[in-house]
């Protein structure tokens, strides 16, 4: 009996000793104290508890740096210039930075930890990005995989954005998601409806945000998002426009089309929308309605794997096959692409080969 107690006490003491050691080490090594952050030479200054990533620290202070991946270091959008206190450049940042950017002290803010006082510089328009609270007004299945989410801003707030831009949707903690995360979704609705926005969300198996939106979220729930972000929007010119989308990549394109219809922009426009099967196509009625308002709009739907029962008589093949056929040469044309990275890359390759200069090909990759 005595031996049992002895062994219990000895092991407990050893465990407690090691726990104490780690606790002491953590309070010394993991504690960064108060850190002072200076943005754009005094335009905004604050003092916070160090230890978090620069991106999340700025977000807590209401400064939203664009980030599509939510701080995992896989999109490379959250660039800021750090003039002091950033520490050495990390290997997780180098894939996203060119030599000039490294020279200009540009860093990936989700990878940089606040370890002391910092002096940073951000584009002033980022101060315009803010957080919005909204209520779910409607949820609708567009296809088996894709849901449309309509959000009404609370307290007659208004968001001003350029069609094509995106917002960061905040996924709150829920069962299966231990901490709140942000994910980027393009706004699919028209910019003049400033009291609400529409997002299009494709289900990703095991995805934290898509599972939340597809399984958990109900009409009437309150959710938050920040925005608007991004430089994917319609440029003013008189060139012929090609809009290319696959899957939920149609979202920003729809917003652009709504703007063109609203502002009666009569540029010759071709929409190419690609999907696998007939059942993966959506917004067909909406696009039909837009065609009524826009005489210059032609819409081409293409299926890469039409099924027997689809009885599909439209285009077959990928969007690149359609583009290959309809574009003879690239003069006086511009293109807007949105969809998965592989589609965007192969389209960019094809369009530059056709002679459309790279600076007139705008795209938004859904990583």
């Amino acid at each position, binding site marked *: 009996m005595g031996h049992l107690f*002895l062994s219990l006490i*000895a092991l407990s003491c050893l465990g407690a000793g090691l726990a104490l*050691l780690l606790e002491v080490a953590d309070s010394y*090594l993991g504690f960064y104290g108060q850190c002072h952050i200076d943005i754009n030479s005094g335009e905004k200054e604050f003092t916070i508890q160090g230890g978090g990533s620069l991106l999340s620290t700025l977000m807590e202070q209401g400064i939203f740096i664009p980030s599509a991946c939510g701080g995992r270091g896989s999109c490379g959008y959250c660039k800021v210039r750090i003039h002091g206190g950033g520490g050495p450049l990390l290997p997780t940042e180098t894939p996203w930075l060119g030599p000039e950017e490294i020279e200009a002290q540009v860093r990936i803010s989700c990878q940089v930890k606040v370890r002391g006082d910092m002096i940073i510089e951000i584009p002033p328009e980022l101060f315009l990005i803010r957080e919005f609270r909204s209520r779910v007004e409607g949820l609708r299945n567009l296809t088996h995989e894709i849901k449309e989410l309509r959000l009404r801003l609370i307290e007659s707030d208004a968001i001003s954005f350029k069609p094509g831009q995106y917002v960061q949707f905040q996924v709150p903690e829920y069962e299966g998601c231990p901490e709140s995360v942000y994910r980027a979704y393009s706004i699919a609705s028209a910019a003049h409806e400033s009291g609400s926005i529409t997002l299009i969300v494709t289900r990703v198996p095991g995805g934290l945000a898509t599972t939340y939106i597809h399984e958990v979220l109900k009409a009437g729930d309150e959710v938050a998002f920040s925005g608007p972000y991004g430089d994917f929007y319609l440029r003013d010119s008189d060139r012929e426009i090609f809009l290319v989308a696959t899957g939920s990549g149609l979202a920003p394109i729809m917003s652009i089309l709504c703007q063109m219809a609203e502002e009666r922009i009569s540029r010759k426009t071709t929409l190419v929308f690609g999907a696998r099967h007939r059942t993966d196509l959506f917004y067909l009625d909406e696009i039909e309605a837009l065609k009524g308002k826009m005489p210059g709009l032609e819409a081409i739907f293409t299926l890469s794997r039409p099924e027997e029962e689809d009885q599909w008589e439209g285009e077959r093949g990928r969007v690149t096959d359609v583009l290959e056929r309809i574009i003879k040469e690239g003069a006086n044309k511009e293109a807007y692409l949105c969809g998965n990275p592989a589609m965007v890359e192969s389209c960019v390759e094809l369009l530059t080969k056709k002679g459309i200069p790279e600076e007139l090909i705008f795209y938004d990759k859904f990583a």
Partner: protein
Amino acid sequence: MELGLSAFVIFFAAIFTNNILLTNFLGMCSFLAVSREVKSSLGLGFAVIFVMTCTSALNYLVYYHLLVPLGLEHFRFIVFIIVIAAFVQLVEMVIERSSPVLYVILGIFLPLITVNCAILGVALFMIIRNYTFLQSVAYGAGGGIGWTLAIVAMGGIRQKMRGAPVPKSLEGPGITLIIAGLMALAFIGFTGMIQIQ
């Protein structure tokens, strides 16, 4: 004097003739996973050398000054693992604070050193073979260096092989295991020099 010499012999034996990876086949999982290139193998190798040397000393002290006097030798597995885990956690904290770059390079493999069986293997061998404190530390350091030598060699070979036409069915882990086998054969060549038991 004899004691010191034998610690020296153990140190070399642990590197070459009794290489923990290539003769005992311990610590294989990170050996296969992180040996794609020399740079990352070297980083992990140094972390393993450090952890192995320090934990062999710590585990020696805990075993002979806590477990043996209290008659609790049968708890050695759990105690060794707790000590190793706590030590790796400590090393992780120190690296994160002092060198963010190294911390990012090692990534997930730093915490995974906790369950590198070569490290528990060293602790158990030193008990089974009744090493003294000095011998244990020498064995730990030698074991770590030997492990690093093997993984860096493997990293170099795999880097060279990147463009080689490996048969489809042997790509990846298949060819790596065959190389590991050939390396083990080559290391048998050293066994004539010294033997430790």
